[in-house]
Every structure is written in C-alpha cells, then in structure tokens.
C-alpha cells in the first residue's frame, strides 16, 4: 500500500495510462516523493509488479502472438473504434482497428521500434515562421524549443537514446546522445548512400534502443523483431525503464485491467477528486487523489473527457486530430537485404521537412503558401506471415515467398509527413458502436488537408528515384490515408494507418482556442493535467514519442515546482526558418 499525508486521499496523483507519458509522470512524481496510482486499462505483459520488477517474459520473437493475435491490444472485438472521412460518410465507414496503439502496460512505447528524434526549432513556432494555411488551424506552441530542450535532454537520459550528431537539420542540443548508434541495416547502407548521391542528408536515426549496456539493461542483439514487438531482452528503454524506476521507489502502484469510467468531481465542479474505474471483474472502484494526470493517449483522453463533457468550454475536446500523413515508397531489389536482422529502421533523412526551391515551387503551383513533408525512415520488414497474406492463395504462393519481393528483397521509405490541424478532424463518440463495457466507441473523422497531399506528391518521385539508384528494380509509392484515386486504398484501408496520434486536447495560451493551458492543465479543472500527445498544437514531421516524454516531463516538473531552466544554443546554433541552402523561405 502507498500512503499520502492527507488521509482523505489514496495518493497524491492518479495517472490514467501507463504509456510513455504516464510512465514519465510516474517516474518523475515518485522521484520527488509523491505517491501515485497508475491505472492502465490493458493487461500487464511487461513487468513484474513485485520487486525487483523484472520482465514478465511475455515478449518474444513470435509474429503470431504479437502481430496476428493482438497480444498488446486493444482487441478490436471488445474495444472497437470507428472511422469516417467526413460527416457525409454517415455514422461511420468502418468498425474495428483504427490507429489502435497498444492498450497494455507500457502503452505505445511497448511495441514501438523506438525512433526518438526531437522536433526542430521551427516546429514550435510554425504560425510565426511560415504563416497560416487556409482550412487549417496553424498555431505556435506556447513555449519554444529552448524551453523544451532541457526536457529533451532529460528524456534521452531517462529512456536511453542512441544517436549521433550528424543530421545537419537537427535542432541544437545542450549535450551529446547518451549512447552511440547501433549497427546499420544492410539496406540502410544502400539507401543512405543513394540519398547522399541525390543531395539529401541521411543520418543514423536516434532510437531508444541500447547500442551498449545502459541503465542495467543489455545492448540490442539485432534480433529483428522490433517494430510491433516487445523486446525480449529489454534493450528498448521506453517505457520499461521509466516504470521500473517508479515502482522501485515503493511509491507507485500500477493497476492493470483498470478501465477508468469517470473523473470524479467536487461539488463545485471546478476540482477533480479522483477517478472511478472498473477492475478486471468489472467491480467499480475509486481512487481519491489530489491530482488527476491524463496519459491515455490522443484517442482515449478526449474520449474520456467527452463522455462526461469535462474541460470542454472551448468546444475543442477531440478536435484538431492529427496523424502523420504517411508516404510509403517501396523498392524491390535483385538481392536479399535481410531486413529481418537489426532494428527495423536505422537511417533517416529530414530534407523534406526543411524544403528547398523545388518544394516551394510545388506549393506555389498548388496554390498553397508552403508545404512541409516529414522525416523519412529508411527501413524494411522481416515478417513472413504478413508477407504471405499479400500474395494470396494459389500455386504461385511458395515461389513468391521464396522470391520475397515484399520482405527479403524489399526496402522502404516511410515519410512521416506533417499533418496540419483541422478542427473538422476529430475524435468523438460513435452513436451506435459500443465497447465491451457498454461505453460508446471512439470515432475518428479524418480527411487530409491539400497540404499533406501536395507535400506527399512532391516527395514521392524523389524517394522513388533514390530507391532506384540504390539498386531497386522498381519502386512504387502509396500513402496512408490514400490519396484520391489511389488504387492501393483497398490494401491499406481508408483510415490513416499511422500510430502517431496527436492534438485532440490542444495546449495554448487562450481558453477560447485551447483545451489545456501552457502548464498542461485543463482550463476548466485546474487539478486535471494532460500529459500525452493530445496536447500537441502541431504534429511536426517527426516521430512524436520523445516529444511526448519531454512535454510530459515539463508539465510534471511545473506541477512539482521543479522546472528545468531553459537552455541556449551554442553560438550560431539556432537557425531562422530557412531553406536548406540557407535562403529565407518565400
């Protein structure tokens, strides 16, 4: 049992969700002497809840368990989500699995292959730097990169990030990466060399995967079962490192299979008193706490708030939903690339975020003020069950699997394109579909802005040319969600496949245009904090997890009264918004 100084409370803070943001909150709060209860609606397949909190051993190199059989949840049969593009589609187009980040102890950090780049300086001042976009709500963040930089540095240390400072477009740093990068995948050595020949600037992608022993966990042994899998040897630091530290303080109680049904409120309606939840036997229980920390992710956090119309004086809860618009260019090579070895992605380039004269011209030609793409991951896939399903039944099947065009000979670029916030893109409650607990399923309404389509169309031929130069016999691009007329839609589905979900309880300085204040508190309920990616005002073009952890750390440290001081760039380190060649964007 844990205790608080106030006998009317069960803990100082109750944290809803145990993914990267909830784990960060638990780690920092307990490190400062607070007691916390972490409620996770998913099951625990990660960490022994008894000291010394070793691994449960549920993770393994097993495609069936992890990919085909929903080990990490949420199972779409009992926790369905629904999707439609616009209201014109009716109540929904699809019911089932929609951007379903794991629902399990550790959340989305459990399954990710842990690409952990920082955002750039411009990402925090997008409106100021680049201006508005018709039909989108482009804003600045309520703080600058310099304010967040110390939290980035802290996050990299807490998780353990391996990387190197060779990306010319990366934001300035106050220190080095905690670890050097790991081994380059063979395919990445080809695609990075070709990218350089094309005038791009590839670099080794920062990852939360140990390249050397770190924090009591071993170095990655390159098993290849990375993206979509828990790590059998705990070489991935997020979220296990954070949760283990919190549990080891003795001040953190982690309760899995605990489905939060409501935030309980004081009679005046201005302060939360805790949460109610259903345990694994559907017994309703309550946790009384001085603070409620919402860390359920950008899908479940607004769903919870919308169920009880809480914190929504702006009418923006659930709105400004953002993903990353994914441009996927695949190439098939004449020789095996053995992408089943190593981390799933070891290389990246950022040139399509920064842009150049050609991208500026593409924007102008489309009647847009500017476009920005995203980080391009250089990676491959190594899973045969998934590949086998692509080929379909028939006598050709065995030969197709041995040729392995879509696995062993395939290399892919995935651009995580910046997705502009649009109030019409949103999470709300489906009027028909329920989850197993009887609560309305969350519904996604999402249609990309022309910005995303133009940015993707501009990058695609560049990426295809690079893959062909790297040795691919052919290259083909598809997007998720599909561009109008894309015949790949039947394969990839209409709903965005991205697990990068952001923006549904936007942070900002004005209660009329945001849901949480710059300190991460609901404008309407000051002791409810939101620490997950739903607070993001923009999506940037970078994988969000490190920024989730850094932002959560900032919010929690402000709550603790222990903020980190802003850092400053080295002389000449910070750049004004500019093209890659240094000229201002026009």
């Amino acid at each position: 049992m844990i205790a608080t100084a106030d006998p009317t409370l069960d803990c100082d803070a109750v944290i809803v969700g145990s993914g990267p943001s909830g784990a960060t909150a638990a780690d920092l709060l307990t490190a400062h002497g607070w007691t916390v209860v972490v409620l996770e609606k998913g099951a625990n397949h990660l960490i022994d809840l008894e000291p010394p909190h070793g691994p449960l051993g549920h993770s393994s190199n097993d495609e069936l368990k992890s990919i085909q059989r929903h080990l990490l949840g949420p199972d779409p049969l009992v926790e369905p989500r629904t999707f439609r593009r616009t209201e014109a589609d009716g109540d929904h187009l699809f019911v089932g699995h929609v951007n379903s980040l794991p629902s399990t102890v550790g959340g989305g950090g459990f399954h990710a292959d842990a690409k952990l780049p920082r955002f750039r300086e411009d990402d925090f001042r997008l409106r100021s730097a680049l201006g508005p976009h018709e039909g989108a709500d482009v804003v600045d963040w309520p703080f600058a990169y310099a304010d967040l930089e110390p939290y980035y540095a802290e996050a990299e240390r807490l998780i353990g990030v391996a990387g190197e400072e060779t990306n010319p477009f990366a934001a300035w740093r106050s220190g080095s990466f905690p670890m050097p990068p790991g081994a380059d995948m063979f395919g990445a050595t080809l695609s990075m060399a070709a990218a350089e020949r094309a005038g791009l600037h590839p670099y080794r992608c920062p990852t939360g995967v140990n390249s050397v022993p770190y924090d009591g966990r071993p170095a990655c042994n390159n098993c290849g079962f990375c993206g979509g899998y828990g790590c059998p040897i705990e070489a991935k630091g997020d979220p296990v490192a954070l949760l283990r530290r919190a549990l080891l303080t003795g001040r953190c109680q982690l309760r899995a299979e605990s489905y939060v049904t409501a935030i309980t409120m004081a009679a005046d309606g201005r302060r939360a008193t805790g949460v109610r939840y259903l345990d694994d036997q559907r017994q309703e229980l309550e946790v009384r706490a001085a603070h409620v920390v919402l860390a359920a992710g950008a899908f479940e956090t607004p769903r919870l708030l919308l169920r009880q119309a809480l914190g929504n004086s702006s009418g923006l809860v659930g709105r400004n939903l953002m993903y990353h618009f994914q441009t996927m260019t695949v190439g098939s090579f004449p020789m095996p690339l053995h992408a089943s070895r190593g981390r799933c992605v070891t290389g990246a380039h950022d040139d399509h975020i920064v842009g150049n004269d050609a991208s500026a011209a593409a924007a102008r030609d489309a009647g847009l003020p500017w476009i920005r793409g995203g980080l391009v991951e250089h990676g491959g896939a190594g899973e045969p069950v998934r590949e086998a399903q692509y080929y379909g039944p028939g006598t050709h099947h065995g030969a197709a699997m041995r040729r392995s065009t879509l696995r062993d000979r395939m290399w892919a670029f995935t651009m995580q394109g910046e997705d502009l916030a649009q109030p019409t893109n949103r999470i709300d409650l489906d009027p028909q579909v329920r989850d197993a607990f009887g609560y309305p399923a969350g519904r996604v309404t999402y249609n990309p802005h022309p910005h995303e389509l133009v940015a993707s169309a501009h990058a695609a031929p560049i990426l295809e040319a690079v893959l062909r130069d790297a040795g691919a016999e052919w290259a083909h691009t598809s997007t998720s969600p599909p561009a109008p007329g894309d015949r790949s839609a039947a394969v990839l589905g209409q709903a965005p496949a991205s697990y990068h979900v952001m923006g549904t309880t936007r942070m900002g300085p004005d209660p009329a245009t945001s849901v949480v204040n710059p300190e991460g508190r609901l404008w309407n309920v000051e002791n409810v904090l939101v620490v997950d990616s739903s607070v993001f005002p923009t999506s940037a073009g970078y994988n969000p997890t490190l920024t989730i952890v850094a932002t959560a750390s900032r919010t929690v440290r402000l709550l603790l009264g222990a903020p980190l001081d802003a850092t400053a760039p080295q002389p000449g380190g910070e750049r004004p918004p500019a093209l890659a060649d240094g000229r201002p964007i026009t």
Partner: protein
Amino acid sequence: MPVWLSADEHRVVGAVLDLLVPRNGPSPGAGEAGGADYVDGLLGAFSFDPPHIWAGGPFSGRNGGEASFEKWIPMGALEELAWRMRIEGSQGDPEREFNGPVLGWQQVYGEGLVALGDDFLGLDEAARVQRLAGTDEAFRELAFTHACEALYGDPVYGGNHDRSGWHGIGFAGDVQPRGWTDVEVEQP
C-alpha cells in the same frame, strides 16, 4: 489427437489448406506442414489452461536460453472475452453481443466443412478446387489466413512442422538470445 476437429474434419482441413497454399519446390503445402494441427489448436485453444492463444517467452530455446514458448501466457478477463467471441462466437450471450451477434471461427469452419461435403477427400484436385470455390467467402479467407499463419508462424502453435515453412524460405524465426552480430546486420 485433434482437440477440436474430428479425425475426418482434420484430414479435410489439411486438404483445404494444401489447396490454398500448395507445395511449391522446397516449400511445403500449408496442410502438409501441419496446418490442420494449427487450426485444430486454435479452434480448441480453450481446451487448455492457460488457453493456447499466446505462446510464452522470452526464448524458444532453439538459439540458447531456456525454452519457454510452451509456457502459455494467462489471459486477462477482457482478453479472454475477446478470444472466446472470436473463436466460439457470441452464442446469444448478452455479454458478447454488445454490438450484435458475432459469428465464431468454430462455426465458420463447421459450416465450411459441411459445404465441402462428406465426399470431399474422394474428389480429384480439380473437383476439390471447384467445391472449395463454392463455399462461403468468409470461410475461404479465414482458411487462407490460417494457412499463412500455419506455414510461417512459430511451430509451437502446431503448424510449420520441423520448421519446414521457414526452411523453404530461408527464414530463421526466433533468434534470441543469440541474435545477429553487427556484421551479419550490416553486410550482404
């Protein structure tokens, strides 16, 4: 011994999987590689405690470490509900029909096997193909998915006998805790 299918049904399922993914050179057919055992184990997963849905970990023992895949992972209440719905169907149970009736895989296979007929194994290949084409699309799609899983999933689930599916395509499967060396990752 099969745990869910009858001996006859087991033979028919194996033949169906071999039609969907037949032998091709060194690659075995899905039935030949033990696909019927895979389907039988899945449909009968709740004959075991813990259910045979998720194999244990972290290591198979094939590349060092203690073999632990056969220590099946216990399921939480919601996880078990989902998998019982998927395999057994909703069966009129209100707890399983919060979004309406759910057709379970046991019923899909049962109806598919009935549609194939008692004489299926006595037919020549062309007739089998024709008979299979006349079954419900949901049955054929499910059986194909299971053929892929049986051929290329870990052998602990009943298929991929002697790792024959993996040997056919040169796939190593579980490599923990040995892993791959940096040289094996970086070089052709």
